[in-house]
């Protein structure tokens, strides 16, 4: 069952399941089993942006003036987001490409992962612009306990799937002894279960894990601070909403059994696991909010409000994949965030943007009424 980069078999790709069918051979999009994935590719490409388009010179001035505990909030969020996108920039490719069986889905996975690498580059762009020594910030990601806890949760399902698939590709089905890991049973059911849990975990990552950071970024921007950063976060949030759509489609197709009847059985069996993944992520995000605000809150936000927001958004996301809401919170405690998350006013081209601080370096961003005093028509 080893992977082939160009499967020489002739088969009808419309009859393949999303995963664990034939390896994809011709990258063709003239016929598609699930056209939604090509629509997502087109949408993602239309969203293309580059971090360098966003000017951060005002953010640097703002950052220096922030209180120490506010700097902690700002940098900690960036570190956590850097972790998340480090994982997301590679893992969909590494874990899912060897087992995908539809050309449009294969290309969506690559497009999705690529867009996460832009996010990673944007964090470097932000950090380089606001602190003198970016090394300190990046080096802390690997040793910070609060971040390490979350790194385990966001990578373990990917890692399990990757291990099982590599055993499957080299040794085939059966029980295999792996030094230091013991005996590992590779069955189609185990593979499919690992896949289902991975997609569920990624869905939760993109649905919930980014949103505490997003809320903080927008809370700074509400005070007209760190607006370049908020502009970048808006672009990232727009991309993440699309990635979420992709994993929601995968999960719903699996759960419905339309794609692979055995997947529907696995989805049913794993229902409690998926609920647990949602709840664990929500719990970790609430703890993250406590960590952020350990030395002091910021105007308009504190750990309690953020905790309620996490519960609220978890309820919403659970329902989009057919689960009952888990938490009792019924209302969004920070409804103003939606005005920041809305993407219809995100413009990348400099001349079209409405926030002045996004402009590229050579343009003076500091204008006030007096600048037009000597201007006559």
């Amino acid at each position, binding site marked *: 069952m080893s992977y082939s980069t160009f499967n020489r078999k002739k088969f009808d790709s419309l009859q393949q399941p999303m995963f664990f069918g034939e390896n994809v051979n011709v990258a063709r999009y003239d016929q598609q089993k699930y056209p*939604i994935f090509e*629509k*997502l590719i087109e*949408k993602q490409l239309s969203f293309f942006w580059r971090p360098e388009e966003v000017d951060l010179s005002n953010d640097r001035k703002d950052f220096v003036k922030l209180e120490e505990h506010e700097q902690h909030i700002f940098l900690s969020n960036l570190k956590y987001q850097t972790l998340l996108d480090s994982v997301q920039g590679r893992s969909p490719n590494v874990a899912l490409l060897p087992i995908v069986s539809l050309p449009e889905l294969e290309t969506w996975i690559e497009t999705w992962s690529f867009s996460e690498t832009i996010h990673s580059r944007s964090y470097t762009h932000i950090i380089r612009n606001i602190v003198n020594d970016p090394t300190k910030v990046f080096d802390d990601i690997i040793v910070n306990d609060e971040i390490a806890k979350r790194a385990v949760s966001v990578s373990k399902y990917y890692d399990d799937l990757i291990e099982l698939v590599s055993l499957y590709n080299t040794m085939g089905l059966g029980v295999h002894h792996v030094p230091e890991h013991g005996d590992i049973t590779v069955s189609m059911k185990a593979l499919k279960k690992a896949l289902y849990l991975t997609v569920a975990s990624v869905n939760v990552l993109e649905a919930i894990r980014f949103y505490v950071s997003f809320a903080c970024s927008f809370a700074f921007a509400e005070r007209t601070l760190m607006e370049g950063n908020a502009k970048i976060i808006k672009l990232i*949030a*727009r991309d993440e*909403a*699309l990635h*979420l*759509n992709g994993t*929601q*489609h995968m999960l*719903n197709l699996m759960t419905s059994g339309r794609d692979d009847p055995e997947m529907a059985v696995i989805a049913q069996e794993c229902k409690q696991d998926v609920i647990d993944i949602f709840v664990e992520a929500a719990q970790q995000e609430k703890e993250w909010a406590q960590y952020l605000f350990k030395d002091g809150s910021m105007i308009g936000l504190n750990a309690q409000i953020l905790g309620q927001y996490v519960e*609220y958004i978890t*309820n*919403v996301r659970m*329902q*989009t994949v*057919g689960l009952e*809401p888990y938490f009792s*919170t*019924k*209302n*969004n405690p920070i*409804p103003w965030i*939606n005005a920041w*998350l*809305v*993407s*219809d006013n995100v413009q990348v081209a400099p001349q079209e943007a409405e926030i002045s601080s996004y402009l590229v370096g050579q343009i003076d961003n500091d204008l006030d009424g007096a600048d037009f005093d000597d201007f006559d028509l």
Partner: protein
Amino acid sequence: MVPTLTTSTSSQGHKEEAEVHRVLLGKKQILVTEDEPLLPQLERAGVLVEYQCREGYCSSCMIKLLWGKVSYPVEPLAWVHSGYLLTCCAIVKSDIEIALLG
């Protein structure tokens, strides 16, 4: 080379009275038209609905459709479960009853 359209559907459609439907939400009743999606009409009526993309891909504005008919002029990218609707792009086509998520 100027096309001679006019007179046809668009101007006729304009003359007709916009059809009004009732939207029941708990004890509230809101009147809406088919001229625009449900979301902005709910917002003007003071109902707080979650939203993000406002163009049908993020699922944030999904709510329950208890009964009644809605349609989508353009098929949204988001997966819409039966019994739910996307307020940002759904056009109300009959009296309906809805419930917010939460």
